[in-house]
């Protein structure tokens, strides 16, 4: 440690990215605990599920599909949030865990159609956790760009497994299947897409409750501590390596569940879905949404689904040359990313909460 003894000088750039330092003074300590955390989070989740049910009941299958898409991406990004925002490990390979989940789900449905959905989800989560354990253990000593590089290669390399075992995993074509839809008892009440959206949100919200509980409690504290200062964290009794791996495992489990949800909704698992782009988009959306808070993950999921839609609609709305029209959505997404990162370096959530603070205490500004 340098004998610096004030708040970290603005020019100190730790390369073990503590990406969210200033952004994430959580309120864990600020609010007196309102009952049991599980109860609190569970009530939130039920409210959210009810909202989703209302929304899907009021809209058509295309919106249902997008709602489901938001839900599963929310879960994936929330997992990434724990890894990147809380534990400070930058992963460019989160899509690989979605790959694991999607294929676990697909293999189960294809080979053992009788297995109940919940068991499929549990298996996918377990497979993801195992993958996370392996990856976390292999990369526990890496920091900053080295971890980023290794996980980037993971995102590219792992889906190739499907190409290596075409008989089992379907090669480049992947697997197509139809998982069980709405139970007959509910036919007439909910249609198939709506049912799937509800399943996704149920899974996602369970995942979020776990992630929220873990982040608010001792584990989250440990992860934030080792993000901010690994040496001091170790000296305070935190087994740094093990905590890092734990973060990887949990985040991979969430990513894997999200992948399983995606496979369940769309009935496909294909390597090209889990290409590098997916991993990069997840991370980009996380930063755009705001590091360090599950709300950030929510904005991220919205962005992943709807910026794309907006770009496509823009392209259709404008009378354009073919080449320009085709490429417009990509450019649009990139431009949104740049503008938001420049305008709100702490993401949508950071900007909104700063706004909120500004409103409530107009005299207090100036968080460096």
């Amino acid at each position, binding site marked *: 440690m340098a004998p610096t003894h004030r708040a970290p000088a*603005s020019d100190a750039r730790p390369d073990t990215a503590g990406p969210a330092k200033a952004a994430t003074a959580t309120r864990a300590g600020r609010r007196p605990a309102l009952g049991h955390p599980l109860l609190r989070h569970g009530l939130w989740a039920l409210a959210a599920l009810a909202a989703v049910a209302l929304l899907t009941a009021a809209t058509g299958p295309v919106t249902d599909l997008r709602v489901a898409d938001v839900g599963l991406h929310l879960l994936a990004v929330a997992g990434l949030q724990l890894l990147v925002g809380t534990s400070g490990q*930058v992963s460019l390979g989160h899509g690989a865990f979605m790959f694991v989940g999607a294929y676990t789900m697909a293999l189960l449905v294809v080979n053992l159609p009788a297995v109940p959905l919940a068991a499929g989800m549990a298996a996918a989560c377990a497979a993801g956790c195992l993958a996370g354990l392996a990856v976390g253990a292999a990369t526990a000593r890496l920091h900053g*760009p080295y971890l*980023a*590089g290794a996980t980037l290669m993971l995102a590219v390399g792992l889906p190739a497994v499907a190409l290596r075992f075409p008989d089992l995993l379907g090669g480049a074509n992947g697997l197509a299947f139809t998982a069980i839809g709405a139970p007959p008892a509910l036919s007439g009440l909910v249609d198939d897409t709506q049912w799937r959206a509800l399943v996704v949100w149920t899974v996602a919200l369970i995942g979020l409750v776990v992630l929220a509980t873990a982040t608010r409690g001792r584990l989250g504290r440990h992860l934030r501590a080792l993000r901010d200062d690994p040496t001091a964290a170790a000296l305070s009794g935190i087994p740094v390596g093990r905590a890092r791996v734990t973060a990887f495992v949990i985040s991979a489990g969430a990513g894997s569940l999200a992948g399983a949800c995606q496979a369940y909704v769309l009935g496909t698992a294909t390597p090209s879905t889990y290409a590098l782009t997916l991993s990069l988009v997840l991370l*980009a959306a996380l930063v755009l949404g705001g*590091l360090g808070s599950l709300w950030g993950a929510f904005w991220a999921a919205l962005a992943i689904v709807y910026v794309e839609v907006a770009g496509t609609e823009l392209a259709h709305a404008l009378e354009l040359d073919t080449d320009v029209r085709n490429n417009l959505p990509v450019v649009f997404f990139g431009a949104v990313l740049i503008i938001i990162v420049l305008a709100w370096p702490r993401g949508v959530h950071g900007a909104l909460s700063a706004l909120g603070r500004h409103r409530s205490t107009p005299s207090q500004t100036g968080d460096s």
Partner: protein
Amino acid sequence: MEHFANLTLNGLATGAVYAALALSLVLIYQATRVLNFAQPAFALVSAYLAYAVTAATGSYWAGFAAALAAGALLGAATERLLVRPLRNASPLSPIIATLGLLMVLQGAVGMVWGNEPLSFAYPLDYRGRFSPADAFALASVLLVALALFALYRFTPAGLRMRAAAIRPEAARLSGVRVGAVLASAWALASAIGALAGMLAAPPFLTPNAFDLVFVFAIAAAVAGGLENPFGAVAGGLAVGVLLSYVTGYAGPELTALAALVVLLTVLALKPDGLFSRAAARKV
């Protein structure tokens, strides 16, 4: 045995391309601690511009010069407009901004030139087991690495560059004009990236042509250690040769997997890359 030699030579030729892009990544990492995702896009724009200039003038080398100039310009502009404003944000922010830039530039190239492949010439005769074009690629990359090494180690400019990257404020207090130094580092790096683009573009150029090159360049840079230009070159050539063997002996679907396994192995043994110095004292 002859097959082995062929695979090795092919691997060296593609490895030179990875090495060139890895060099530009390393240089930018050294300068600003940013993993520049827009680097392949700079290379792409430069290569497409070179294509246009070559088509207009009929001279490959006019296109080549235009590419390097365009690369330098793009790099400097990005540093000024995207990276510098995010200096005090989280370290991830500039990385994500460059990712956004990658999307914008890649899409823009598609808008202007379309997504169909263009036929892109080699600088020199490409025929032969180790052709003049291959030799050009390898030689230019080695030369650039040598020059960069000398720049870092022996020149005040290199010292300023490193200082500006590590602790901008402390560097300013030693009289380093951090802004100018960083902009020129980005310009230089992106010119090297443009060189990589010119080497990687033949034979066919598409807006996504450099995606895989970029991935392997990152793997090369990381495996070699981000502190050292020779690490990038060694990493690039090693990755090129390795992938060539894997394709030749095991099957092309395994290349990415093999790269992953090798990278993890290297980093497990040397967490900061092969050419890194000892880890810094923490307390």
